[in-house]
C-alpha cells in the first residue's frame, strides 16, 4: 500500500480506524451494487484501497484532483449511484469547498465524503495536512450531515448510517490508530443522538472524534482523584446537533466543556455555544481545542497534549471550570 510517511508505532490496544472503515466499505460494496468509491491518489492512505481490490470496476482514482472527484461524484449520484469519496479532510473540505457546496449540498445528492486524517491526526505532516477548520466550514452547509466518529467501530456505524440515509454526508475520521472506545458496533448509534460515555452531574464534557476517549479517561480519573461526577457526551454528530442532550446537560450540570481536535472557532465548541446562547441558560463554559492558531508538526499525541485536548488538558480544564462563576440561583425565568 502506498502510505506516504511511515507512521509511528501502533499500540496493540489501538485499531486503525481506516482499516475498519475499509472493511465496512467492502461489506457495503458486496451488499449494494450501486455503491462506488472514489479517491484522489490516496487509495492506500485512506484504506479505500480494500474496496478497489474487491470491486475494480466500481473504483475510480482520479489522481490528485479533488475538485474533479467531487464533480464526478455528483454526476454519479445524480445518475443513481451511491459514491463514497475519500481524501484527507483538509482537501475534502477546504480544497473543494465550492464543489462540496454546489455539486453535493446544493443539489442535495446522495454522495458520502469520507474525510480521513482529520484534525491534527497526520501530526508529522504539519499544518498543510492538518484539518483544523473543516468542521466549521462543513457544518455551515445546508443539507449536509456531519459526523465525527470517535473510533473505528463508530466509523463503521457512521458509514452504514450514511448509506442508509439519503443525502450528502461528511464523515471525518483520523489517519487511524484511535484508541478503542467501544467494544463493538452494538451500542445504539443513531445520527444526531449523543452517546453518554460517563454519567455525571457536576460538569459535562462534550467531545467528538479522538477527544471522546480522552474525555472519558479524564472523567474516570477525576472520579477517583477529585470525587467529581463528570458527564461525558460523545457528540459524534455535529449536524444535526443533539440540542436536547446539550440542554439537558446545562440544566443538570450547569458547567460545560467542549473538546475537539479542531479550532475553537466554529467547530463543536461553536455549535454548542450557539445552542447555549439561544437557550439563555447561565452556565460556566469552556471551549477546548486549537486556540485560533495554526497547528505545528509533531506526533498526534504530543499535539493533543500541546493544545490541551488530551486527558491531562481536560482534567485541568474541568478543575478550572468547576471554579468558574455562573448565575447559580434557581430562578430560570430571568435567563430566558
Amino acid at each position: 500500500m502506498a502510505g506516504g510517511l511511515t507512521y509511528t508505532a501502533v499500540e496493540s490496544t489501538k485499531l486503525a480506524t481506516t482499516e475498519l472503515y475499509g472493511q465496512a466499505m467492502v461489506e457495503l460494496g458486496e451488499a449494494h451494487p450501486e455503491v462506488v468509491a472514489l479517491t484522489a491518489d490516496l487509495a492506500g492512505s485512506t484504506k479505500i484501497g480494500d474496496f478497489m481490490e474487491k470491486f475494480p470496476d466500481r473504483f475510480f482514482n482520479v489522481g490528485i484532483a479533488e475538485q474533479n472527484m467531487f464533480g464526478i461524484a455528483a454526476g454519479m449520484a445524480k445518475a443513481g449511484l451511491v459514491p463514497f469519496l475519500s481524501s484527507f479532510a483538509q482537501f475534502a473540505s477546504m480544497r473543494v469547498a465550492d464543489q462540496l457546496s454546489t455539486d453535493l449540498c446544493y443539489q442535495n445528492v446522495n454522495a458520502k465524503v469520507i474525510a480521513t486524517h482529520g484534525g491534527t491526526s497526520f501530526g508529522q505532516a504539519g499544518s498543510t495536512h492538518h484539518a483544523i477548520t473543516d468542521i466549521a466550514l462543513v457544518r455551515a452547509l445546508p443539507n449536509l450531515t456531519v459526523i465525527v466518529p470517535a473510533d473505528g467501530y463508530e466509523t463503521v456505524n457512521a458509514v452504514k448510517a450514511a448509506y442508509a440515509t439519503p443525502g450528502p454526508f461528511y464523515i471525518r475520521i483520523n489517519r487511524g490508530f484511535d484508541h478503542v472506545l467501544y467494544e463493538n458496533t452494538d451500542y445504539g448509534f443513531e445520527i444526531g443522538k449523543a452517546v453518554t460515555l460517563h454519567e455525571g452531574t457536576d460538569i459535562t464534557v462534550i467531545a467528538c472524534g479522538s477527544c471522546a476517549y480522552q474525555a472519558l479517561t479524564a472523567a474516570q480519573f477525576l472520579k477517583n482523584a477529585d470525587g467529581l461526577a463528570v458527564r461525558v457526551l460523545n457528540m459524534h454528530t455535529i449536524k444535526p446537533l443533539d440540542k436536547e442532550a446539550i440542554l439537558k446537560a446545562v440544566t443538570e450540570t450547569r458547567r460545560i466543556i467542549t473538546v475537539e481536535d479542531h479550532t475553537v472557532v466554529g467547530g463543536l465548541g461553536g455549535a454548542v455555544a450557539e445552542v447555549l446562547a439561544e437557550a439563555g441558560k447561565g452556565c460556566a463554559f469552556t471551549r477546548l481545542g486549537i486556540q485560533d492558531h495554526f497547528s505545528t508538526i509533531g506526533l498526534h499525541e504530543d499535539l493533543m497534549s500541546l493544545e490541551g485536548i488530551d486527558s491531562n488538558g481536560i482534567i485541568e480544564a474541568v478543575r478550572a471550570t468547576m471554579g468558574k462563576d455562573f448565575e447559580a440561583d434557581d430562578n430560570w425565568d430571568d435567563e430566558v
Partner: protein
Amino acid sequence: MALSKQEWLALEAKAHKLRLDLLETTHMAGSGHIGGGSSVLDILTIIYHKYMNIRIEDPKWEDRDRCIVSKGHAGIAYAPLLVDLGWNDPEQLKTFNLTGSKMGIHLDSNKVIGVDASTGSLGHGLSIGVGTALAARVLGKDYKTYVILGDGELDEGSNWEAAMSAAHFNTSSVITFVDRNGAMIDGPTESIMALEPLADKFTAFGFNTLRIDGHSFPQLAEAIETALAATDKPTCIICDTIKAVGFGSKAGDYRWHYGAMDDDGYEQAKKDLEAYYAGRKAKAEQEGN
C-alpha cells in the same frame, strides 16, 4: 449531409422561436444574459431537438441522455427551451428572476424540470458529465452525456482536471461543446486570459477535437454524428459563435454579456431577430437538400 433540408429548416424555426422567447424573458425580467444565451442557443436547439434521447412524458427517465449546461448563466436561453419542450409551465418564464420564482439566472436542477445539474459556479460541468458517463458504465446503460462549456470558464483549472479524466477513463459517451463566443465579462477572452490554441489544448488532453461554426446546423450535425460514432476518445466540439448573435448591432459586442433593454430596444431586437432568421432560413432553403 447529416441534416435534411426539412430538418434544417425546422431547427432554424425552433432556434428563432427560442431566441424570441429569450428576448421576451429578458424583457419581462428587465435584464438577462443575452450575449451568451444567444450564442449557445443553436447548440442547445440541435441537441434537444435532433439528438437527445429523452421522453417528454417522463423527464426523469433513467435511461435518458443527459445535458449538463456548465455555463449556467445561459439559463435565460435554457429555461425557454425546457418550457417549450412541455416540461415546465410557461407562466414560470414570466416570473424569471423574480423573488420566489423557480427560475432565475442560474437554473436549479431541483426546481426546474429537465435540468440535469445545477450550475452557475463555473468549471463544474465537465466533471459532473464525466460522473454521469461513468455511472452509465457501472450501471450498464448506454445513454450519452452532452456537456456545454463556456469559453471564458475554461480559465478555471477544474475543467482541465475533468478533461484529463475524461480521456483517462475514455468516457467517449461524453460529448463536450465549447461555446467559443470569444468574450467574457471584462472583454475578449484573448485579452483577458488567452485560450488559443484551444483545439490543440483539448487534443493534447486526449480528446478528438473538432472546430466548427456553432451557428451552422449542418456543421453541428456533422460534428455531433462524428462524436457519437467515436469510441476511442471523448470528443470536444469547439463551436465558434457570436455573442448576442441575431441581436443586430449588439452581436459580437462583449458588453452584451449581460444587459437590459428598454421598450424601444425590445422592439428593435424583435426586428433584428426576424431579419436574422430570414437570412438563416434563406440560406437553409438555398443550401439544404
